[in-house]
């Protein structure tokens, strides 16, 4: 690994090694560009991953202090845990379950398709599906997505059997084990899926795609990647010319360092990315770096989520096998006759005993709750992922009353459910219940959203510098050599799990950055 000196300002500095940052770093180094990759977390591996929910959470999760506000239930049940994302090499690609879905065409044009919705800050993306398609294809190849590029679909587990039969009973037609970035056969020097479960705890076989053991080693093999772990970025500096010039971080030994940069790409996931910009104010940018639009931190989206768990008279053992290889897509289209805009996916999900106790119904106690836990081996479960409405008041701000371990204000995540979200969730819960009751469920629980695993929109894309933070390439309008490379870019959330789109945007952004650098535009 080529060490790049702190005073060497010729490299691209990428902050965050997950789906966006890890992919961008690899794509750039493959093109001959030198990259410093700063990751706040440690470097784990398939050997060090732990198949124990709480221990794994302690190992991989972002646990720095955060606060919450708004009427979302997460603020009551988990006031200091708005999100379940990761602080580790590979970022949240260590924890994700592998669902890899392309946006639908109309979802890039949510404002035009849904019309203006009161209380929502809907906008169209400046890009469309046609432009994204070749990059989606490249991402699917990179990630080994099943049912693309001749990768066979995964075999369905018991949880999937229940989902499929329930779906068929109630007339759904679009149910399969889905598009998953999990090897269904030996591929890319990585194992085929062993159906272990524990997908959320880091895949110990490496069958599930993660930048930790794909993009990052590929980048390292070029000799052009300088990965620094336990490097926690504090702020980004700009020079008199208004360009990003250096990144200030605390290293593994606790020493503050300044790395000069030719280009800075921020991929710290949507809460931390926005916070980083807000903590990088200067005379030129008194309201946060690259925030002339006032949109940094705003339009925070977390998807319409919720789960449905059902007990049956016979065993399911839903924890055996993949956590999420199962999907029903019949409700994903925009069909306003249902009483809301946008659509949702229904995906199999399983939690282990410890996390079921924590998340099935946070705060609940007594015999209603325990009767569900008693039925654990006979339980099936699904997770609902739907398009939530962006809102200018759903936002990440700096909580100046609470400081982190470095003395910087922590992020506060404010979220209020929009009426469209509530209508969609009610519909989805009812459909989930119907599905499971159709195959004999004796008891059904509607589980509220977990701390958010999908965090989006806080540096949204727009062609208009007054309405968004970045342009169609994720380049900030205000600072030409400052890029946003994670899900913060999302203009709207769409109904699909975001990782494939984040990787796709990173591949595309790497082409743009490389071209801009060779033309000396950045």
């Amino acid at each position: 690994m080529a060490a790049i000196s702190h005073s060497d300002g010729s490299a691209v500095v990428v902050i965050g090694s997950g789906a966006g940052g890890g992919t961008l770093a690899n794509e750039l180094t493959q093109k001959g560009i030198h990259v410093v990759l700063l990751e706040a977390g440690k470097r784990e591996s398939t050997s060090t991953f732990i198949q124990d929910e709480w221990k794994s959470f302690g190992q991989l999760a972002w646990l720095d202090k955060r606060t919450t506000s708004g009427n979302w239930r997460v603020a009551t049940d988990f006031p200091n845990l708005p999100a379940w994302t990761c602080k580790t090499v590979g970022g949240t690609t260590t924890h994700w379950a592998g669902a890899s879905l392309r946006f639908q065409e109309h979802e890039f044009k949510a404002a035009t398709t849904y019309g203006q919705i009161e209380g929502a800050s809907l906008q169209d993306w400046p890009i469309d599906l046609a432009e994204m398609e070749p990059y989606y294809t490249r991402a699917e190849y990179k990630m080994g997505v099943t049912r693309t590029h001749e990768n066979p679909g995964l075999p369905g587990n018991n949880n999937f059997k229940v989902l499929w039969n329930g779906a068929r009973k109630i007339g759904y037609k679009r149910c399969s084990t889905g598009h998953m970035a999990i090897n269904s056969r030996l591929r890319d020097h990585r194992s085929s899926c062993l159906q272990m479960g524990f997908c959320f705890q880091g895949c110990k076989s490496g069958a599930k795609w993660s930048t930790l053991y794909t993009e990052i080693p590929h980048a390292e093999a070029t000799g052009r990647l300088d990965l620094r772990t336990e490097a926690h970025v504090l702020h980004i500096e700009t020079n008199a010319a208004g360009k990003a010039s250096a990144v200030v971080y605390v290293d593994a030994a606790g020493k503050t360092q300044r790395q000069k940069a030719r280009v800075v790409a921020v991929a710290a996931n949507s809460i931390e990315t926005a916070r980083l910009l807000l903590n990088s104010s200067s005379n030129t940018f008194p309201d946060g770096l690259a925030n002339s639009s006032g949109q940094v931190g705003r339009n925070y989206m977390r998807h319409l989520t919720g789960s449905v768990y059902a007990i049956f008279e016979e065993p399911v053992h839903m924890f055996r096998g993949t956590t999420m290889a199962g999907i029903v897509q019949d409700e994903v289209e925009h069909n306003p006759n249902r009483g809301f805009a946008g659509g949702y996916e229904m995906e199999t999900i399983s939690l282990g005993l410890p996390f079921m106790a924590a998340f099935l119904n946070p705060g609940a106690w007594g015999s209603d709750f325990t009767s569900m836990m008693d039925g654990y081996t006979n339980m099936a479960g699904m997770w609902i992922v739907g398009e939530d409405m962006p809102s200018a008041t759903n936002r990440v701000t700096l909580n100046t009353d609470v400081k982190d371990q470095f003395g910087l204000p922590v992020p506060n995540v404010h979220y209020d459910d929009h009426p469209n979200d509530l209508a969609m969730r009610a519909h989805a819960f009812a459909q989930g219940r119907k599905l499971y009751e159709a195959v004999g469920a004796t008891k059904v629980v509607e589980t509220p959203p977990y701390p958010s695993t999908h965090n989006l929109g806080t540096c949204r894309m727009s062609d208009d510098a007054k309405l968004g933070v970045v342009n169609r390439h994720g380049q900030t309008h205000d600072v030409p050599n400052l890029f946003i490379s994670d899900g913060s870019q999302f203009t709207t959330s769409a109904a699909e799990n975001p990782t494939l789109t984040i990787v796709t945007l990173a591949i595309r952004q790497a082409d743009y950055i490389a071209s801009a650098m060779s033309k000396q535009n950045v």
Partner: protein
Amino acid sequence: MEQEPSHSAALSRRAMIGRTAALLTGTIAATSVLATLAPTRVWALELHTLSQHDGETILAFGQTLYPHKTLPTAVYALLVKDLDAAAAKDPATAALLQGGTTALDSAAAGSFVAADPGTRLAAAKSIESTPYFAKVRSTCITSLYDNQMAYAHFGYPGASWPLGGYIRHGFNDLAWLPNPPASASPPILGLL
């Protein structure tokens, strides 16, 4: 029939230990799956900060909050163990827990431990908004459900890596519903 701590056994153990340590004891029912797994069916928990009465009250409170008819008291004793450890670390927590015993006894008009289930439930509901309730309830989530005994009781095997995953251990063995077609659920391909 098990469940209640044994006082006479506790007294003799205390005499053997030679000091006034608080001690909870119990037995695992022969019908519990744990009976075949545990090295002995008798369990004992020594308390370091909380009193005997505090420990017995917390155990009974845990059973009221999260009633599982056949979950052995050995598992509820883990709740007491974890809260005793928290009390040892922090005097404010110790005071909170001791105050909670008083509150529950008062709400049960005498002794929470001696009260019937209906009285216990009403007493628990009456203190639902207190910090003591919040502390004990939230501790239950990990103490009761994140341990090997609970795993065995509820049928959750824990880690599957030592097995080589479930691909040859029943990941798709559900037989009470028809199998999906290959288009929805393709066959297993090569391993490793």
